[in-house]
């Protein structure tokens, strides 16, 4: 069994697609010669050439805008935005252009971009290296949003995203690039090398966008979660001995509604966990969907555990992070109903 951490898995997915498809190109700030500030593109320029893996000016607008043009030409660009916090200058090109191009041109042109970007906190990155803006993208018709939680999934989902003909936002939970953080920040971190989900097959495989992963089967309650928080939820349920069904959504748009419905109908209780700020976060959509579709199966109010509606504060990062205590409290509440 070959085990990789998430960076290695992502790097391998990129390498496989670049080798297989000459139209795949990689661009972004520091991704070329240096191989990315998180090393996700390390070695790729050397292997695939400066024409296909290259550094860009510091202009997220230009990165996405140029990628849209490249996509219209027929390439399959995989731009990196160095931190999700810095995606906003490129948002217009994503929302007004990439997301609507197929529709507005009635398929004359498409934007088969895969925008990779590290997101999330827990690394003492302060308010501009910690955000989780996935809800903004989920609101935009025409975009798909993917968030892996394991090396295995990161590789398979990234390959699927690159092959997808729609623009995909691929958010990488940077906190778990190197190890599956459980939220117990004061305990030693288990490395990927000993984690079951770091077994990454060689060669190409892909995981369909829109299919959730049942991270853990259970009967007592359903947990809807993605990214870093999958591992935190798992740890809390383990700790508390709760027979939870933990659904790692993997893709938030399109969503695996069948998996969600089946689980909530079974358990009657639903907890939603994300790191992003609460108000109008993606958890709201999940809560609304569950209420709309599983109402008569609900035995308790759907609960959301989220980051607070504040910027991510540097020194109080662990007070912000929706860690084991916050999740535990919600589980207790749900189980007591």
């Amino acid at each position, binding site marked *: 069994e070959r085990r990789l951490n998430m960076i290695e898995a992502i790097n391998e997915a990129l390498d496989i697609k670049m080798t297989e498809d000459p139209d795949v190109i990689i661009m972004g700030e520091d991704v070329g010669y240096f191989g990315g500030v998180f090393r996700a593109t390390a070695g790729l320029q050397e292997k695939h050439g400066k024409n296909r893996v290259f550094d860009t000016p510091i202009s997220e607008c230009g990165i996405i805008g140029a990628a849209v043009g490249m996509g219209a030409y027929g390439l399959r660009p995989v731009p990196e935005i160095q931190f999700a916090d810095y995606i906003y200058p490129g948002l217009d090109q994503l929302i007004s252009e990439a997301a609507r191009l197929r529709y507005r041109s009635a398929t004359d042109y498409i934007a088969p971009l895969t925008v990779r970007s590290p997101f999330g906190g827990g690394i003492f990155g302060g308010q501009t290296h910690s955000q989780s803006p996935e809800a903004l993208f989920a609101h935009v018709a025409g975009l798909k949003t993917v968030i892996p939680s394991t090396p295995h999934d990161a590789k398979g989902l990234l390959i699927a995203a690159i092959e997808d003909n729609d623009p995909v936002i691929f958010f990488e939970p940077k906190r778990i690039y190197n190890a599956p953080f459980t939220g117990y920040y004061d305990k030693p971190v288990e490395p990927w090398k000993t984690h079951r989900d770091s077994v990454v097959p060689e060669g190409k495989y892909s995981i369909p966008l829109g299919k959730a992963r049942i991270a853990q089967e259970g*009967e*007592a309650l359903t947990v809807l979660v993605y990214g870093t928080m999958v591992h935190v939820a798992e740890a809390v349920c383990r700790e508390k001995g709760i027979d939870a069904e933990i659904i790692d959504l993997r893709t938030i748009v399109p969503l695996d509604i069948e998996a969600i419905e089946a689980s909530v109908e079974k358990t009657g209780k639903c907890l939603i966990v994300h790191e992003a700020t609460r108000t109008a976060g993606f958890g709201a959509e999940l809560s609304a969907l569950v209420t709309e579709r599983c109402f*008569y199966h609900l*035995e308790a*109010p759907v609960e959301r555990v989220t980051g607070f509606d504040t910027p991510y504060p540097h020194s109080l990062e662990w007070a912000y992070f929706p860690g084991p205590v916050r999740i535990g409290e919600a589980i207790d509440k749900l189980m007591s109903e």
Partner: protein
Amino acid sequence: PAASEASDASQTLSPAVRRAVLEHGVDPTTIKGTGKDGRLTKEDVIAAAKAKGDDPAPATSS
């Protein structure tokens, strides 16, 4: 989890009806629902409780 052996009706109780059932101590399987698909409504439960001669309980739970 939902009591899987419970009657059809109990699977289609809205939260408000469930609360009414608890507050009024009536057995939902004994009441005929007037809601959609024969579902119990809050009014059905209150009517059943009245018929049973119960005091309406104060709505202070939860």
